[in-house]
C-alpha cells in the first residue's frame, strides 16, 4: 500500500505534510519570538509570530536571575532523586514478581496492575494529610519519596524484560554462591541496563514538568520546581501590571529544552521499551 507513489500524489503528500508541520511548529516559533522581544514590545503586548527583535540580553537576564536558577536547581534535584528511587525500587520489586515464588503472588500482581486504574485524585487529599503530618510541606519530599516505592507500570515493564532472561543464569549464579539479592544486583541489573535507562527516561518525563503536586505541597518560592516557578512568574499578583512575558517565555523554553534533549538522546531506549513491552514475555 505504501510503495508506488505517483508524482501528483507526491505533491499532495508534501503539501499536506508541510501544512501540518508548519501549523505544529508555529507555537514553538512564537515562543522563541516572544522570548526575544524587547521590554517595550512586552509593555505594548504586540508580539510577532516570526521574531523581528532579537533581544539576546533577555537570556543573559534569564540566566542571571537567581530565582529562576533556583527553580531549575530544584527541578534537577527532584528528577534525580525520582529517577534513583524509581529505577532501584521498581527493578527490585519486579525481580520478586519475576523470579521468586510466594503465597498470594498472582493475586498481589493483579492488585499491582489494577492500581494503574485508580485516578490520583482519590488518594490526593489523604496523602496531603499524611505528608503534612510528617512535616514535609514546603519540601520536595512528598513528590520524591513515593518514587522509592515502585510504580505499577515500571514493575510491569521490567518484569516483562526479566522474564526473557534465561533462568540458567540464576542457577549458575546460585552454584557460585550468590543469594537472591546477589542475583538481582550482580546478574539482573547489568543485563537490564537498556530498559533501566528507559525507566529513567519515563521517570524524567513524568516529573520534569510536574505541576499539580508542587502546587499542592509547596508555597515557599525558594523550594519550587521550574514548572511551578514559570506559573508564578507569569501571574500578576505582584506590583507590576504586565508580567515580563519575554522572561516567562525564556523560562518556558528552559522548561522545554531538557525534554527535547532527553528525547533526542534517549529515543532508542524508549522505542525499545515501547515495542517490547506489549509482546511476548512468557509467564
Amino acid at each position, binding site marked *: 500500500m505504501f510503495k508506488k507513489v505517483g508524482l501528483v500524489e507526491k505533491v499532495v503528500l508534501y503539501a499536506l505534510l508541510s501544512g501540518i508541520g508548519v501549523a505544529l511548529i508555529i507555537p514553538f516559533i512564537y515562543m522563541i519570538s516572544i522570548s526575544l522581544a524587547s521590554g517595550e514590545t512586552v509593555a505594548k503586548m504586540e*508580539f510577532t509570530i516570526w521574531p523581528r527583535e532579537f533581544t539576546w540580553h533577555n537570556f543573559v537576564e534569564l540566566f542571571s536571575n537567581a530565582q529562576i536558577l533556583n527553580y531549575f536547581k530544584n527541578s534537577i534535584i527532584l528528577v534525580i532523586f525520582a529517577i534513583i528511587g524509581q529505577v532501584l525500587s521498581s527493578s527490585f520489586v519486579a525481580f520478586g514478581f519475576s523470579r521468586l515464588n510466594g503465597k498470594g503472588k498472582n493475586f498481589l500482581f493483579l492488585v499491582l496492575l489494577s492500581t494503574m486504574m485508580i485516578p490520583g485524585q482519590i488518594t490526593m487529599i489523604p496523602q496531603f494529610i499524611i505528608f503534612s503530618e510528617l512535616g514535609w510541606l514546603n519540601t520536595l519530599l512528598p513528590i520524591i519519596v513515593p518514587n522509592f516505592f515502585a510504580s505499577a507500570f515500571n514493575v510491569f515493564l521490567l518484569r516483562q524484560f526479566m522474564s526473557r532472561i534465561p533462568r540458567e543464569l540464576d542457577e549458575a549464579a546460585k552454584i557460585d554462591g550468590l543469594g537472591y539479592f546477589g542475583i538481582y544486583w550482580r546478574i539482573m541489573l547489568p543485563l537490564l541496563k537498556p530498559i533501566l535507562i528507559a525507566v529513567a527516561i519515563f521517570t524524567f518525563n513524568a516529573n520534569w514538568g510536574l505541576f499539580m503536586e508542587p502546587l499542592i505541597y509547596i508555597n515557599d518560592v525558594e523550594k519550587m520546581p521550574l514548572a511551578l516557578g*514559570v506559573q508564578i512568574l507569569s501571574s500578576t499578583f505582584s506590583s507590576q501590571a504586565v508580567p515580563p*512575558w519575554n522572561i516567562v517565555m525564556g523560562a518556558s*523554553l528552559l522548561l522545554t529544552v531538557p525534554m527535547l534533549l532527553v528525547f533526542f538522546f534517549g529515543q532508542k531506549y524508549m522505542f525499545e521499551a515501547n515495542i517490547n513491552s506489549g509482546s511476548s514475555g512468557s509467564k
Partner: protein
Amino acid sequence: MNTTTNSVVNNNGENPVPEKNRAIKVISKAAKKEQRWFYIFIAPWLIGFIGFTLGPMIASFVLSFTDWDLFTAPNFVGLENYITLFQDDVFWKVVYNTFFFTIISVPLSIILSLGMAYLLAQKIRGIKFFRTVFYLPVLVPVVASSMIFKWILAPDTGVINRFLSIFGVDGPAWLLDPTWVKFSFIFLAIWGVGGNMVLLLAAIQGVPEELYESAEMDGASKFRKFFHITIPIISPVIFFNLVMGLIGSLQAFTQIYILTGGGPNNSSNMIVPYLFSNAFEYYKMGYASSIAWVLFIIIMVFTLIIFKSSSIWVYYESEVKK
C-alpha cells in the same frame, strides 16, 4: 544428597511415607526461604501500596461522609456531601464542561492522529524529518504549552485570530468568551496529538503487506484498503488510545488552572480543578473527597462502556472473522 536413593526406595514401595515426608521437608525449607525473599523483594511496593494507595483510598472514602475543614475535628454527616453535590449547580456545570471537552477532543484527536499517521507511513524522502516535527509538541510540558497558547489564543494579536482574519472572520476572545473558552482547551489537546500518532504509526507499519497485495488483486481502491484492512488491523491500538485519552481528558487540570482558572464564570471549569479549589482553597476536604469518588465512578463507567463496546469494533488477530 540422597534423593536418588529415596526415590528408589519409594519405587520399591518399601516404607515410602517417612522418606517422602523428608523430601517435602527439604523442598519446603528452600521454598520457605524463597517465599521470605519474595516478600522482601516486593516489600517496597507493598508498603507503598498500603501507605499511599489503599490506606488513603479508605480514608478518602470515609472523609467523603464528613464535613472536615482540616482544622477542626471531622463530623460524620452521612450522605450530605453527595446530596449537596447533586444539587450543586457548579458541579453539574463542571461535569458538563468536562464531558464536552472529552467527547469532542478525544475522538477528534484520534481521527487527526490517524490521518497524520497515515501520511507519515508513506515511503517518501524526508519522511523522518516530518515524523520528528509532528512529535515535537508532545515533549512540551503542559505549563509551557499553556503559556504559549495564552498568546496563540489572544484576541487581537493571537495566531488563530490572525489566521481567521485572512478569511474575514472576526475570531472571538477565546479565553475570555464563555461560549468559546472550552474550544481553547480542545486546540491545546489537538496540538499534542503526536503521542497517539506514534503508536498508530507503528501499528500501521506493522500491517502485513500480503493483505494489501491480495486486496489489490481484487481491485480494491486506496480508500477501501484503508477502511477495510488498515483500520480493522490497527483497531486494538485505536482502542488503547481511546481509553488512555478518555482517562486523561476527564482528569484535565494544569492547562485550565493556568489559562483560565476555570473562568469566565466557571464556563471552562472542569471536575479536577473544581475538586482542587474545594480541597486546597476552601478547605472543604469532605466535599472534595466526595467529588473525587464521583470522578472515580465516572472514569470507571466510561472505561467499562468502551471495554464492553470493544467486542463489536476491535479486531484481534486470534479471532476468526465471520
